[in-house]
């Protein structure tokens, strides 16, 4: 599904190398988790994959179902099926959440040559999905993320994911800021989308989320590289011992 080979990325305006050769293969139907110390490049990887400005790819490649991602505009990547749940969702005053969602859903459908959703159809689906995530009608009406609590913002990310039904979902610390109940809701939201055809990359610092979203593979990222890959037990090891042992092991 998602294939990353030797990806090297530096900042556009600064002589700072952040990703130093990342290799990652995520198969359809699988959940991969990435853990790693602060500043190791996890968010950068997710931004570069989704096409954010300010980064320069200096080597390697990334493709989604065999299609080169790095040449595409962000909206084209989205239409191709890539989704990023932001670590810090952006507030957009003046743009209603519903308008935003509907514009996004229909823009993607249009880009893929599919029929657009009618207002009524859309309303029905969004209400049902919102209810599952305990997002009330008021939050749907308000401007995108404006005045939302940290946890509400994260649930809103998952709502967008549920509406857009992407093929490849990247979740960047979606668990941070969530209370225990909200974490369960979010995990249920994600698990509901786990299907044969869909891949997940879950970036997290904590085992807690992985209790609910059971990963197939766990990677450790440090200093711009994947330094270790293993099964779910690797996350437990990090939870118990931190990164010191693993870092020492590869040094």
């Amino acid at each position: 599904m998602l294939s990353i080979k030797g990806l090297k990325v530096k900042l556009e305006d600064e002589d700072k190398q952040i990703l130093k050769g990342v290799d990652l293969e995520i198969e359809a139907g699988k959940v991969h988790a990435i853990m790693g110390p602060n500043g190791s490049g996890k968010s950068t990887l997710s931004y570069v994959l989704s096409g954010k400005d300010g980064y320069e790819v200096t080597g390697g490649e990334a493709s989604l179902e065999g299609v080169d991602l790095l040449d595409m505009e962000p909206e084209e990547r989205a239409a191709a099926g890539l989704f990023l749940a932001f670590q810090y969702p952006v507030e957009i005053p003046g743009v209603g959440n519903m308008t935003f969602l509907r514009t996004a859903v229909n823009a993607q459908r249009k880009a893929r040559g599919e029929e657009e959703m009618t207002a009524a159809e859309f309303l029905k689906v969004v209400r049902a999905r919102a209810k599952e995530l305990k997002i009330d009608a008021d939050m749907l009406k308000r401007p995108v993320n404006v005045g939302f609590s940290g946890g509400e913002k994260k649930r809103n990310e998952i709502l967008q994911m549920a509406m857009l039904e992407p093929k490849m979902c990247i979740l960047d610390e979606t668990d941070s800021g969530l209370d225990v109940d909200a974490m369960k809701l979010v995990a249920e939201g994600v698990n509901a989308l786990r299907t044969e055809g869909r891949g997940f990359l879950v970036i997290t610092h904590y085992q807690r989320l992985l209790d609910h979203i059971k990963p197939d593979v766990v990677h450790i990222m440090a200093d711009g590289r994947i330094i270790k890959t293993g099964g779910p037990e690797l996350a437990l090891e990090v939870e118990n011992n931190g990164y010191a042992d693993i870092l020492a092991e590869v040094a």
Partner: protein
Amino acid sequence: MAEAAVKQTPTDAMIATLDMPQGGWSDAARRDALARVQAMGLPGRRDEYWKYTRPDTLVQAQAVPAALRDGDDTVLFDAVDRLKIVFVDGVFDANASDDLTLEGITIERLADATSDLHWGRDLYGVLENNGQNPVPRPLAALNTAFAADGVLIHVTGKPSKPVNIIYRRTSTTADAMLHHCIKLDAGAELTLLENGPVAARFNGVLEVEVADKAAFHHVRAQGRDHEQRAATHIFARLGTESTFKSFTLTANGVMTRNDCVIELTGDDAAAHVAGACVGDGRDFHHDDTVFITHDAVNCESRQVFKKVLRNGATGVFQGKILVKEGAQKTDGYQISQSLLLDDDSQFLAKPELEIYADDVACSHGSTSGAIDEDALFYLRSRGVPHSTATDLLTLAFLAEAVLEVEDEDLREEVTGRLASWLERHAA
């Protein structure tokens, strides 16, 4: 003295081209106004109040011709049930207009109102004259002296529908001067809509007297005219517990100067002035100049002006709140913001507060900035194309001003017009 002598020349040249209507109740007001213009002189480039806007094309004797280029925009307010008053090239057109009778309101053409004892005598040129202090507005005095057409609206009740002054232009050279007076009696209400291209050059004055507990709503669209030059003035005086709300949408035109002068003279009154402006290209220049005087207790005023500028367009805002001694519990708010879609466009702002009372809450802010890149990426990452995302964010930026239009249907029309403009002017 030397300064005045230098300025006298264009003023005389302009006056020489104009004919003053003679006789009737407005005669004295016109002669007084002429004396004012001659004393002040028409605005020149060195006038403090014209620092950011070059008055040349507005004051030169001959108007610069403006090509007719209609058809690329929908006409606003067509779906609204309203009473239509039509002016073609700055001249009232009775055939195109509706029957001017409507319960609760009396409408007369300025040129037809000749009786000596007309109510207009207490309004025509009166508010304009009040508005000459402390800042001279010679173009408005010129208008009072020479405007040959316009409407006089006396609102005694609550008419069942809005009045819509519709302007049409058929000539590339029309140089129009119109003067409208509106008098709302105590408790009366009126919604006034104005739209359409007036003339190649337009000098407009609107004087509005809002008596106690009366309410005046004004929604104006300046646009559908790419080369128009306009200087407009609104003068309003508000009585106790009265409301005045005026919103202006400006799209296109090359030179627009909109002055708005409001006096809050009765306690507990509210005045809102707002504008949304979209401009494209080096030739586009838009200036909002607002002066609000609080001279009563517990009044509220709001100024909300938003501009979207691209391809070298220029926006200007000069806004002042003057709180006189004794105008306690004043609540004054002023915001002027521009969204600059490129580095060539510019926004020049001069927000001012002058306060002589101690128990007041006044705030003002002025900003100019680019599209929020993080918001843009967020939208695009959800599949919204770059241009759609930019338009969404631009409309969001304008929303605070558009929200000042109270009526939801009118607000939607305004938003729709802005959206279609943005679509046509895609980056």
